[in-house]
């Protein structure tokens, strides 16, 4: 585990990355595009946040990378989720649901 306590954003970004990579292995650029598209431009992740997050996840063995040929014939580094990554993703999703549920409950208070 990293010695730094992950900030909310960082934790959220990792959750997003793991979730999307589990759905479909892809490269850094495509991943950024997909986040933007799926979130309907609400979330725009710049490269300065995305690549350190990817490298951190890779260093923790939660995702792994391999060089593959893209649809346009370019050599790209494609990331996919490892078994450990799936486990962490499940945990984080549960936690997020609990958190979101709690937050929703609080916001219901009138």
């Amino acid at each position: 585990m990293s010695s730094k306590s992950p900030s909310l954003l960082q934790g959220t970004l990792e959750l997003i990355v793991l979730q999307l990579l589990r759905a479909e292995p892809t490269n850094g650029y495509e991943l950024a595009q997909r986040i933007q598209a799926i979130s309907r431009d609400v979330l725009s992740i710049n490269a300065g946040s995305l690549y350190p997050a990817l490298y951190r996840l890779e260093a923790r063995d939660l995702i792994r990378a391999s060089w593959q040929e893209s649809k346009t014939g370019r050599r790209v580094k494609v990331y996919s989720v490892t078994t450990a990554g799936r486990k962490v993703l499940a945990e984080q999703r549960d936690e997020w649901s609990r958190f979101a549920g709690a937050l929703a409950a609080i916001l219901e208070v009138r």
Partner: protein
Amino acid sequence: MSAVGRARKWVRAVAMRGRMEREMREEMQAHLTQAAERLAARGMSEHDARFAARREFGQLGAIEEDAREARGGVWADNAAADVRYALRYFLRTPLTAITIILTLALGIGFSSAVFSTLTGILTRPAPGVPDDPALVKIRGIVGARPAERLLSYPELSAYAALQDKFASVVGWASAAVVIDAGDRDIGAFTARAQFVTPNYFRTLGIRLADGRTFAQSGFAELAPAELTAVVSEAIATERFGGARGALGKHVKVNDVEVTIIGVAPHRFAGVVQSGETRMVWLPLSAWPPVANVNDRAFTDANAASFDAAARLQPGVSVSDAMAAVRVVAARENATTNAQATPASAASADVVPLRGIIEIGQYADEMGPSQIVFPAIALLILLVCTTTVSSLLVGKAVGRRHEIGVRLALGASRWRVIRQLLTEVFILSLVGGALGLWVFGALLRLVEVRNDGFDVSPNWATTAFMVVYAIATATLAGLSPALHATRVGLSHVLKDTSSATTRRSRLQGTFVIAQIAIAQPLMVVLAAVIINIAGKIPPANVVGLRERIVVAELDAYIGSALKAPDRMPALVQRIGELPGVVSVLPVGRGQGRSALELSQSSAPGDSAAPRFRSVASAYDVPPGYFRTVEAPIVRGREFVASDTALSVTPVIINEQLAASLFGSSDPIGRRLTRALLDNGLRDQPPRELEVVGVVRMETETNSLGYPSDFPPMFVPYERRPADGRLLIRTAGPAESLIPTVMSVVRAEARLVPVRRIGTLGQGDRERRGSRIEVAGSVAGGGMIALLLAAIGLYAMVGLAVGQRRREIGVRVALGANTRDVVAMFFKGGLRVAMVGLGLGLPLSVVGLAILAQKTGMVWIQLPVAGAIVTTAVVTVAALASWLPARRAAGVDPMVALRPD
């Protein structure tokens, strides 16, 4: 992540750093290209698309830095950068780097060798013996101020019976033996035999290099005689060309045929040092036939022949065993030594089994020589560390400008310190590697000269070297690094020297201390060299000394076997050889004697004589002076009847005659003589009558070392064990030596030739060994001076570097460059002089100790002092002048230019 996983990651980060960097760049480049393509597809021009993609991506360098950090292993990148930077810096200042490396190599090499030797002496068992805390020596001691004594077989058996304390006890009786390997060319040779209880090798855990140990195995297995032997590596290599060649060979030990069944491990020569490398171990049952001892040796409690060692029972401490051994020893003492006073009472103790048992067991066994060795090592260490430190300080201060700029550009102080420390660690790494080589060379030297202790590197030595190298690097590097980085930027860029005067003063102190230390070291070394040089025999030996052979035969061992004395027949046979003029048996010398003119021998005059001269006494037969062509200038030579006279006749040399009798006639005068050598002091003084005066400055007509004292001669009376022969030939004698050897082998097969050679060969050998000693001593002194000179050079160089601006001002104001150079030169010289002055009392003390220890004549010491002072001043002048000259090269235009 687990620790293993993390470590794996680190290793990967270091090992695959280049590939990971490449891949990261390629990945980000791919990202940019894809983004640009997307933008171009929306209708942007290619150039605009690329530009927009870059803007969208962000600052590439910063992102890469963040990504690297996220990936882990940043420290590896930083370390690599530090190393690259350090190497670039060393290439810019190669001289400083090389000097520091050499200084460290010497320091680490020397102190590790000293450490290894000391631990070898003090804590390690003899070579070939396992380092096992359960192994102990049972040591017989006698008297209140204990001296070591041998044990009787009954006493040894009593210790072996202490089975609750000792798992196993071994004993051995030692004797010199003659071994005849049946080699017609070499003949018999002398070796040291140990007749060991058959459990010896197994109990001590000594693994033979080859072959097996004895068939008998029990402690007390004494019959029948097993005639087998284990020989030392030295015998196996010298006589049989190696272990394989020795195994199975039948040799005659004291004329008893014995089969070699094993070869001892490398350098093993018994568990306690004896100084002998030709060793042979036989089972104790072979002792009676080989060493000619009878049954009494096993039953008589007063026949002491044995040493003992043992393996402790598990869980038994040395002090437990000691208590039990003391009880047994007291019982033995009560039966065999009933009238013992405290001064003669026998006891015993138990000590860990070391190569050299004596040292450190009793306080008074530690002589001053054991302190001198580590003291020298400490001096070397001190000199090396101060030199490295002052070089580093100089280097760091010289780089204040560079460091100031780096700090100003945002480098953290820790980053710069880390950089400086990296440099020092690289230097000490290389220095340490070179030091390892120095260490190895020194160890080989020590190993060749000493047989009793193990100096081969072990974990303790290795740990010492590593810790020493790291400690030197940290100590010598940290302080300059801290100081260098404390300097404020504004100070640096203004080039004020206020921040550095304190530092250079500190360095001055270092250099003064170094010279103060190096000087007495060198004075003492020079005195030793002069003393040795004075004794080197001249190289131009011609004529007579090539026509005299001295043969030394080990006749006394043969006599111990009660064999008939072969020497008279041998003298006759050699005398009959063609080319031999005469053969004289001569004595082995009688050591130092104090001489005094006899009083008017009044009876009852008990006043101790006041001795006037010291001489070295030699016993020589009639015809000796004719043989060595030393003219008798007064009186007569010895005649055969001289040994029967009631007052011993003496022949003295001219110098001794002059010092004893002045100009009056010495013939017929009487002298009182007392023996001075250890063990002979208690003999009462004897009277001598001068019968002749010989012209001979020093006695050099034997293969022994010439003495510092004038020679005196007394008649030689041959004893059966004597074996020294003087053979005078008509022509060059060297070619006759093989013939003499074969005569000895034919005539006296069991009399080994210990040494044989012409006087000329002896001179050359002596000369060689003295030059070797003088050379190595001189080398040590040179290294000390070199280190001091390096320190001085660094100091003056630093002063010039620091005061460039001041020099510029002076030159701009019209100062002569020669005056400026002179100013720095004088500064360096002044420091050297202070060091010399402080070292003077130390030198005097060193010389006094030396004079007292070696009996070296004081007159040589001022000469040595003068030579060394001149040398130090010359070197100091050179070490100051070289860097001072640089001041002349300072261009005021450059020095005064604002940064």
